């Protein structure tokens, strides 16, 4: 082996060790993709930190987070709506093979209708990745039975397309609370007002009789439409008398991404009696 080849092999092996030597893996970044009408597109990065080649297929769908019967956010694809951008966004390339430690930039091209109004439009990028061959144990003897289970990983990410200067602000309706054992269930009737999704954080702080904080919890928010998530505060502090709800734009995971700012809101509610 030539010195250069040896060095490259060593470097690749080291990079593999640093990646944890996963058999099959895919990295997608960022986890929220924002596009602007001025640029008509954007990029997503893919990387294979594993030691197997993977086949990747990209597609687009539509769906917005809703709240299920237990008050948790969920997401179903397959619907459509007035802000559906999935029909005029296209990833390129749509299919590719990523060798171990190979990276690839995916471009999202937008071909919006000419009459598209100002505002934010939404889609979901679907990244499907699987090893290019199922790792089936070979039947070494004629009467052996071998089993191989191929894994396909689908990563679904939000895509926001912004035209003009979209704006959004959250509203908070009448909060309802219920005690359940030593827990407090808080229902937050939230809605985004404007022409964009509200990406923010609800901070729930329990205050004692002197208005001092005794307990706190946070709920990341992805509000594309009105929703009533339920927050469960466990092991309720017996000193708690009131609940302060603070809703503000921005989330810790979106620090490096362009989140639309909006004025925060704060409201306080008296806890129900035990």
């Amino acid at each position, binding site marked *: 082996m030539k010195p250069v080849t040896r060095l490259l092999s060593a470097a690749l092996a080291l*990079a593999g060790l640093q990646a944890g030597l996963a058999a099959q893996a895919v990295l997608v970044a960022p986890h929220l993709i924002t596009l602007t009408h001025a640029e008509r597109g954007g990029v997503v990065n893919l990387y294979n*930190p594993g030691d197997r080649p993977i086949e990747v297929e990209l597609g687009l769908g539509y769906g917005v987070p809703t709240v299920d019967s237990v008050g948790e956010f969920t997401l179903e694809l397959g619907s459509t709506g007035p802000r559906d951008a999935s029909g005029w966004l296209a990833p390129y390339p749509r299919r590719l093979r990523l060798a171990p430690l190979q990276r690839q930039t995916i471009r999202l091209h937008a071909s919006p209708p000419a009459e598209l109004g100002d505002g934010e439009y939404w889609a979901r990028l679907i990244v499907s990745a699987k090893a290019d061959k199922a790792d089936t144990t070979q039947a070494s003897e004629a009467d052996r039975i071998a089993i191989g289970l191929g894994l*396909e990983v689908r990563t679904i990410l939000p895509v926001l397309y912004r035209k003009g200067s979209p704006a959004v602000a959250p509203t908070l309706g009448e909060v309802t609370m219920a005690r359940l054992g030593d827990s407090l269930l808080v229902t937050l009737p939230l809605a985004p007002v404007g022409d964009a999704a509200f990406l923010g954080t609800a901070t729930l702080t329990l205050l004692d009789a002197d208005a001092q904080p005794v307990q706190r919890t946070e709920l990341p928010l992805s509000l594309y439409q009105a929703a009533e998530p339920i927050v469960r505060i466990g092991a309720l502090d017996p000193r708690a008398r009131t609940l302060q709800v603070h809703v503000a734009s921005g989330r810790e995971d979106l620090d490096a991404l362009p989140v639309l700012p909006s004025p925060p809101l704060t409201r306080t509610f008296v806890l129900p009696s035990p």
Partner: protein
Amino acid sequence: MRPGLLALALWAMVPLVLSGQVVVSAERDLDFGVVFRGVPSTVDPTDAVKAGRIVVTTPRNVQFRVSFSVPTLLQGSGSATMPISIGNGDIAARFNTSSFRYSLNPSSMYLVTMGRGYITFEYGGTVSPRTTQAPGAYAGPIIMTVSVL
């Protein structure tokens, strides 16, 4: 050594870290080993050698829904099939290095709010080769969906 090749070598040594990255790593496949006709074979999700293991890493505070689609039949050559069951309790989840496992049902969806670190999914199941099972290789897909909200 040419500077370009040296730069390439050094570039490859740097682990890729991108802002807002979601990484799904299948660190180990579910391995039933050698199975025999007429003898069901079960792998527990806590099996440190045979259970499949998938690690998901995201930035802190990311909320995502995770769901699974699992096969009920493995496909062999021609029309040969073999029953497989990955049911309630055959998938487990745990955060970081915690030994506490949440037992999951593959027919349900779960909401995950990431703290600092990662979440590990381990999965097992049962294959039931028939007494007349044809020899050969049998395969089937497991689909894991991670939907960032």
